[in-house]
């Protein structure tokens, strides 16, 4: 017997939106977790036939391989514009994208901020792992000061590259968005040695649901998932989680920065 089950989706089972294809993500990568949560959230609301996903450029570029949805590939950074074009043509569709921090906060910042400022009813999930993953570990606008990357071999320096960009704060500074949230997504170390909590994934699940709810209520939704990239940070999976908790969590604090529809109060 299944512990608890919805009519269509098992509480702890594979989502019907998942294609069954194993992901190309590295071991322990939050991209995989987010893909799972999105599949679950869309299946819960039985939205497959009214959803169009926009694949961005970066590690999320293969999203259509894993999510059994209609999908449009955007050029690097342009997903918010492509999503807007789809949504304006078909307001009844649920339109979302998973962007990376390079995609959303660097090359696509204009498209992100203007879609946000217009309050386009779309949903954007930004995976912020503070580095360019797909291209092999170059510095991102979100890279913490001092972090060594292939293009900041001495560590990111402020005079040379400026400060890490706080995308969520930037989006929340605009009037347009209806739902803006940042989630510390990785599993987190606890005082008990070698025991981590999975609060990030549970919080992430709630944020994904609310980000779709906000779109269905006609608002722009943006959720940043502070994440890890153990391969390009050149750490073990668990050390990357520890580093994220130590360095990224204070730099990119979690919180709900905008909740126009009161989704968090329910």
């Amino acid at each position, binding site marked *: 017997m299944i512990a608890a089950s919805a009519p269509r989706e098992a509480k702890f089972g594979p989502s019907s939106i998942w294609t069954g294809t194993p992901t190309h993500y590295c071991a322990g990568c939050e991209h995989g977790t987010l893909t799972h949560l999105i599949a679950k959230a869309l299946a819960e609301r039985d939205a497959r036939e*009214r959803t169009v996903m926009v694949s961005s450029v970066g590690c999320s570029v293969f999203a259509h391989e894993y999510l059994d949805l*209609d999908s449009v590939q955007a050029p690097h950074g342009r997903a918010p514009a492509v999503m807007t074009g789809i949504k304006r043509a078909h307001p009844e569709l649920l339109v979302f994208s998973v962007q990376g921090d390079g995609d959303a906060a660097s090359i696509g910042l204009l498209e992100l901020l203007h879609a946000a400022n217009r309050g386009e009813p779309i949903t954007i999930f930004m995976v912020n792992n503070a580095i360019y993953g797909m291209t092999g570990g170059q510095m991102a606008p979100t890279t913490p000061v001092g972090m060594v990357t292939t293009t900041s071999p001495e560590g990111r320096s402020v005079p040379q590259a400026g400060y890490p960009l706080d995308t969520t704060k930037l989006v929340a500074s605009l009037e347009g968005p209806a739902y803006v949230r940042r989630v510390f997504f990785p599993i987190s170390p606890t005082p008990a040695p070698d025991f981590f909590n999975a609060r990030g994934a549970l919080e992430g699940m709630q944020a994904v649901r609310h980000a779709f709810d906000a779109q269905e209520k006609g608002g722009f939704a943006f959720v940043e998932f502070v994440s890890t990239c153990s391969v390009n940070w050149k750490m073990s999976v668990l050390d990357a989680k520890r580093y994220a908790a130590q360095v990224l969590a204070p730099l990119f604090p979690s919180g709900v920065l905008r909740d126009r529809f009161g989704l968090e109060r329910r």
Partner: protein
Amino acid sequence: MTAPRQFLKGNEALAYGALHAGLQSFYGYPITPSSEVPETLATQVGRPEYPEFRTFLQAASEVEAINLMLGAAATGEKTMTATSGPGFSLMQEGISYAHGAELPMLIANVNRAGPGLGNLGPEQTDYFAAVKGGGHGGYRNVVLAPDSVPEMASFPSLGFSLAFRYRTPVILLTDAFLGQLKEDLEFPTIESPTFDTPWAATGARGTTRHVLSSMHIELPEQNLVSRHLRDKFAEITRREQRSEELETRGARVVFVAYGICARLAQRAVRVLRDRSVPVGLFRPITLAPFPRDRLRALVDEGVRSFVVVELNTGQMVEDVRLAVDGAAPVRSMNQFGGLLPSYRDLVDEIGALAA
């Protein structure tokens, strides 16, 4: 509804022509000398005369505009933009992606002068960018060149027909002169073409889902896609070459010109024919596919030489030479910098040839 007899700028005619052709969305960024297109369309969105025209959005840049169009086109919508050279440069990324995912769209380029900011005068310097493909990865646009305000009105319909029939971006290449030129016209009867779009991404149905992507990470797969795109343009080249001729029968010398230069050449041909000089005009309507078959046939019909008139330092002349393939001399006659030649310059050019 637009009155049958009107006095319109080329850009305004283009806007109304697109509306009559069933335009559903316009995404653009203001740039002289194309801005009358968005200005006209902004007044028409949501009007009962054009029920299909639901979306007008001034984008934050031409980069955003072309990507908004990628999204609209992915749902099978008739979408267009209008821009000029600097904006056309910014759109090349999106045009390349539209080819990769085979998305139909209409892009009007009201060509202004010079590289960089240049000036606001007319030029035909974006011929290469439009005809040869200005972006990365190797693709071929369909390029239409109107030569009058009535054609500015009727070509969006033709553009959408070709765009949807072949699932390709179509460039409407015009210039600052035609965009700003006001002409008296009987507003033409314009067809709103309709097409099935079973490929459109509007939600997965059953086992069918639509993945519109230009990414083919497996090398043999990209090879197949590139072959398909090549074969598609070969088919377009076989079926869609369009041109117009004036007095080519019995002509010994033929002007080859498009857009505003074709208008100048028309006048020059009439003047020269009045003087019994056997001169004609060949006007490509599709700059791509270039109407090479008909142009080459003119040599067999007795044309001894060609004079290519264009507002650049020599671009279309290369395609004319390829089409004629050495069978007759091809001379280049150019003006640029935003300046136009006079029809008298064309008349004199023929005089020099005859001498």
